[in-house]
């Protein structure tokens, strides 16, 4: 029977997920990336977390940078505790040994220091300097190999940090068990950090580029949602049950509400009432089936006012624990960070119904639009698997007109229910129209209905029966030439 590899958790949000549980204990890894990519932060965050778990760390620098300067920078980060330095985390410089005596002296020094410190994690910063000092690639291999050997003998996991962009065939890469690459790219005027596991010997990992950021908490990694949830985490409901939309007439149109764990997309122009439809959907939340509003445009205060205008007391719902209004800004942020945050809130609240208002905000954060479909598929798949009934909104650009632009290619195949809202000009009056375009696995009423929003809430009534061309926005009453 195969035994799982012993893991050394990095304690870094998301990175352990990429590594399927952490670094392999006793293995050696290269962390590479250009200056400023976050290598030192990653290593020191890992060191602090490792010490908090009972480990001991030796940080050896082959650089001329002062440790005091490093501590000054690290002291601005929440994970760093200066009290850990000097005993459980020992910082030593091997620069002099490298300069004066060469690579063998560095290996000898570190061998003694690993034993003296009883280190279970060795971090060597400045591998590039060792490479420069090596006369041949064989010298580099020998250096890495000897270091690995001494560390392995002491049961010590090794991280080698370098600002060189080492290629797959480099002597260093061939020797180590894993390669973690950090980088940054400009997207428009924004800099976006990313992390990639370029080599993970003998271990599964989430490959490809993943977004990450550095803030006061240190490095945070957000695995690509479609990689993380390539298979939904839970099996979902096995029986077909329906949940109400909060609007009785709409439930009728949908054939008795929406299926529990289904995804509904409401498309329509700005001001048509998509948010109001979402608020009605959330008004049907209960303490044993809470609802989450994950919105980008309207603050919780405005949503409460809007709900009150429809006859719903959202503040009371929030107090009783049946509702959470989660507001996100759209100015900065990462697509996968947003997806992870949404799923975290759903998990924390135990949400049974979710309104995402709107999908367009996710699209704006997608630096690679080609990912969007897979992203939405993974996100909705995971929500569906958790039995969450979801109402998504999508703002159409044209206030009138028959053209319908989809939020992402093939999105209609992802959603179970599709509702279209349109402004209609009829007899010198602007009216709101809603129709059900699709209900998966159920009959539905395809008739166009007028939607009225007022103090009595949202009321739907059959309308436009005597007119044609309603979806164009400018219907013509029948019988008129």
């Amino acid at each position: 029977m195969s035994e799982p590899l012993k893991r050394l958790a990095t304690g870094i949000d998301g990175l352990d997920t990429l590594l399927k549980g952490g670094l392999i204990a006793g293995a050696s890894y290269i962390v590479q990336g250009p200056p400023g990519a976050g290598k030192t932060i990653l290593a020191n965050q890992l060191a602090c977390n490792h010490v908090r778990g009972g480990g001991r760390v030796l940080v050896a620098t082959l650089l001329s940078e002062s440790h005091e300067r490093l501590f000054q920078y690290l002291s601005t980060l929440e994970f760093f505790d200066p009290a850990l330095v000097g005993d459980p985390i020992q910082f030593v410089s091997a620069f002099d040994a490298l300069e004066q005596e060469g690579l063998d002296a560095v290996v000898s020094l570190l061998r003694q220091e690993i034993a003296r410190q009883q280190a279970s994690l060795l971090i060597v910063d400045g591998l590039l300097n060792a490479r420069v000092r090596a006369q041949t690639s064989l010298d580099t291999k020998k250096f890495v190999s000897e270091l690995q050997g001494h560390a392995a003998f002491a049961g010590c996991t090794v991280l080698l940090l370098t600002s060189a962009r080492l290629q797959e065939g480099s002597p260093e890469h061939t020797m180590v068990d894993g390669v973690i690459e950090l980088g940054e790219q400009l997207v428009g005027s924004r800099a976006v950090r990313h992390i990639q596991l370029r080599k993970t010997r003998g271990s599964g990992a989430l490959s490809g580029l993943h977004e990450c950021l550095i803030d006061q908490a240190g490095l945070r990694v957000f695995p690509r949602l479609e990689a993380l949830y390539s298979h939904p985490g839970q099996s979902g409901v096995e029986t077909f049950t329906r949940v109400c939309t909060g609007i009785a007439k709409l439930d009728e149109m949908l054939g008795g509400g929406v299926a529990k764990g289904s995804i509904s997309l409401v498309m329509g122009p700005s001001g048509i009432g998509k948010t109001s439809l979402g608020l009605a959907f959330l008004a049907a939340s209960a303490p044993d089936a809470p609802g989450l509003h994950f919105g980008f445009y309207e603050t919780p205060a405005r949503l409460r006012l809007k709900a009150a205008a429809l006859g719903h007391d959202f503040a009371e719902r929030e107090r009783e624990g049946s509702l959470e209004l989660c507001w996100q800004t759209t100015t900065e942020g990462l697509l996968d960070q947003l997806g992870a945050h949404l799923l975290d809130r759903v998990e924390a609240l135990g949400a049974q119904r979710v309104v995402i208002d709107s999908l367009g905000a996710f699209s704006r954060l997608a630096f690679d639009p080609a990912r969007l479909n897979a992203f939405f598929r993974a996100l909705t798949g995971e929500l569906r698997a958790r039995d969450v009934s979801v109402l998504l909104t999508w703002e159409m650009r044209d206030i009138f007109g028959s053209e319908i632009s989809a939020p992402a290619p093939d999105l209609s195949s992802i959603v179970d229910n599709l509702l279209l809202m349109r402004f209609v000009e009829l007899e010198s009056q602007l009216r709101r129209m809603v129709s059900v375009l699709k209900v998966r696995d159920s009959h539905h009423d395809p008739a166009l209905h007028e939607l009225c929003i007022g103090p009595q809430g949202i009321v739907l009534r059959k309308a436009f029966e005597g007119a044609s061309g309603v979806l164009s926005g400018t219907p013509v009453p029948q019988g008129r030439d």
Partner: protein
Amino acid sequence: MNTILIVDDEYLIADILGFALEDEGYLVEKASNGRKALDALKEKRVELVITDYMMPLLNGEELVRAIRDELQLPDLPVILMSGAQANQGRICPELFAAVFDKPFDMDRMITTVRELLGT
């Protein structure tokens, strides 16, 4: 002329401090760790040691204890350069003639050196 031994694995700090002390007329020797410092002290007459705390092989405290016990030099003054954020509560200040938190004021260090050497 008095000789001062600077012990620090970070060569930049050792160099900068060394230049400042040489400008004051002192002879300066350097060692990159505690073990090398002990070797140097066996070979040369040194009037003052300035040492870092966190170093390979022997830390600053282990070094001063070795100076007292192994080398039997109870009166050799030793100044400690300690990381202000690090080593909190781990240092025995009574082992040292003076303790400086890094980064330190060079003028104050030179004044302390002069006082300890009576120069």
